[in-house]
């Protein structure tokens, strides 16, 4: 119990719960009305998945700067498949996932074959993907595609948006992968101490490729969420996802150096950021002040975590 209280996840959960309660009270419980809650959770799905997409590469001590743009590219490409190529929605969805995973695979292969820093490789592929994303439909917007897919995006189960459930399911799957599967453990081992992992017969190269591929696949899932839930896509999708993709896992307690992940932390951090977002529209706060507030909240959260560490450290 004590050890649970000391975790970063616990701090985040407390802050998130307090923040949510405070906002609910401050909005005269408007936050808890079906419509508001629905919008809250629907737009939480994307930051969760994109945060996880970044987290899986952070796990091996790499970064993927292309997650955001890749999400946009997959989304626009599936729009193209449905509208310009006239293919049915399931094909477009599968294609988005496959495309994401393939680009991730290419990222991983480039990293291991060129031995260039993953940061630079993904920066380069991000630029390439920007071109491709624009190349699909220029500045045009796809909308009015598959009603079934959009209905799926709008659907709710017991008042909870299906896309949010999808994001949670993905988070559970990712957690399970890292916790319970052998490739997942190998991946983390490789991130925690590559040399030791190699001495234990784990292929670091395979771990790198796997992490990047998974990251791409998750970006593909993010694209599916975008296409389904938001009803229209164009080449600007993904531009504002890069920083949130880092913010969620890192605030959530994931180490940049690799070897340590936290799915719960990532989800909670995404929740926190979304909370600030929503309070902005509820109270009509100037966006610039929101930026200031997000900055303060993030710093506050980590400082609190630090304070907690100090406290528990002192008890030793």
């Amino acid at each position, binding site marked *: 119990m004590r050890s649970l209280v000391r975790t970063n996840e616990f701090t985040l959960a407390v802050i998130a719960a307090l923040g949510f309660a405070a906002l609910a009270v401050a*909005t005269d419980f*408007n936050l808890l*009305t079906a*419509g*508001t809650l*629905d*919008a*809250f959770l*629907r*737009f939480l799905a*994307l930051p969760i998945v994109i945060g996880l997409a970044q987290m899986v590469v952070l796990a091996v001590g790499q970064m993927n700067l292309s997650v955001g743009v890749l999400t946009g590219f997959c989304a626009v490409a599936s729009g193209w498949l449905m509208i310009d190529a006239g293919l049915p929605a399931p094909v477009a969805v599968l294609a988005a996932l496959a495309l994401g995973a393939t680009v991730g695979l290419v990222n991983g292969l480039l990293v291991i074959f060129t031995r260039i820093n993953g940061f630079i490789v993904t920066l380069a592929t991000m630029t390439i993907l920007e071109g491709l994303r*624009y190349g699909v439909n*220029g*500045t*045009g*917007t796809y*909308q*009015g595609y598959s009603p079934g897919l*959009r209905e799926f995006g*709008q659907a709710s189960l017991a008042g909870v948006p299906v896309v949010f459930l999808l994001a949670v399911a993905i988070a559970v799957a990712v957690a399970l992968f890292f916790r319970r599967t052998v490739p997942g453990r190998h991946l983390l081992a490789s991130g925690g101490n590559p040399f030791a992992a190699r001495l234990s017969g784990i292929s670091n190269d395979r771990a790198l490729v796997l992490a990047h591929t998974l990251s791409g696949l998750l970006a593909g899932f993010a694209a599916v969420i*975008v296409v389904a839930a*938001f*009803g*229209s*896509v*164009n*080449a*600007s*999708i*993904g*531009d*504002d*996802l890069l920083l949130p993709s880092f913010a969620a896992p890192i605030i959530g307690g994931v180490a940049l150096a690799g070897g340590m992940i936290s799915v719960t932390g990532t989800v909670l951090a995404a929740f926190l950021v979304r909370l600030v*977002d*929503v309070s*902005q*529209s*509820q109270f*009509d706060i*100037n*966006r*610039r002040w929101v930026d200031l507030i997000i900055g303060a909240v993030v710093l506050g959260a980590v400082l609190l975590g630090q304070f907690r560490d100090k406290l528990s450290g002192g008890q030793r």
Partner: protein
Amino acid sequence: TKKSDTTDTEAGGREPAQVKVALVPGGSHPYFQPWKDAGAAAKSELSLGDVTFNETAGWDQTKQNDVLKSLAAQGYNAFGVFGVSPDNINSTFEDLKRQGFAVGSLASCPAGANKADFCLSTDVEVAAYKGAKAAIDAMGGQGNLVHLTGNKVDSNTQRRIKGVEKAVAETGGKVVLVQSVTDIDKDLQSAQKAVADLLAAKGRQIQAIVNTAYNPAVASAEGVRQSKLPIKVIAIDDDPAVLDGLRGGSVAATVLQNPVGQARVGSYALMKLSGGCTISEPGVTIDSGSFVVTRDNLDGYEADRTATTEALRKKFDGDLLKCN
């Protein structure tokens, strides 16, 4: 000792075939897409040396400056520019004019005095006013209105806000501007999120939304349609997505601007200036026109626009350009 500035030259004396026009938007945006065809048309119509369209600036003033320098290095000598940053673009204009190029500010005017030869642009305040008027009409003259727009720290956005406020003020309190949401035009997803949050927080109190930026327009049309709330959406421009909304009913009206006219008349004026004409009133600002389109006049608006474009050209020939 410093050498005298011998590099400063005046535009002039170029035959049309020597005039190479560069149309440079601030970045990729549906609004500018008509420039491409209009520029090509101007080239053949006016027998210009060349007309190019370069949208690689990516909404970054530094990059746009770079693009302009590269174009100059390739021999382009007349520039129609949408300045990324209205507050900074004047120094770029001065830079280009120092090198003896004709420069027109297209689709947006610099903040403060215009240092380009002329500015041919939608009067954004008027356009926003018209949009707000259309919204007030659509909501039946009373209720709550929301304004969605782009980058707050941009003088054009400030003018748009002013235009909307003016229209609201004229209702004498019957219409209330509940909120002006800014900074949501950077990408579609932020616009979608902002619209969803807005509708969740205040959807039931709102009767109309007026958009003065593209991504919010697309997002609010779709968002309102999905929420099934009885909110009238006033969009901007005539991108296929907006026209579809107009036909489908999710958009009540849209405010069109005149990018074609800007590119064609702009190229024409740049050619004339390069050929030795001068502008009678340096830095003059000309409204390129804005039009409210509803489902009823969907078919006729193109003719209005062509007429306006023709009138613009006449205006240049008549009293703006001094040629000898």
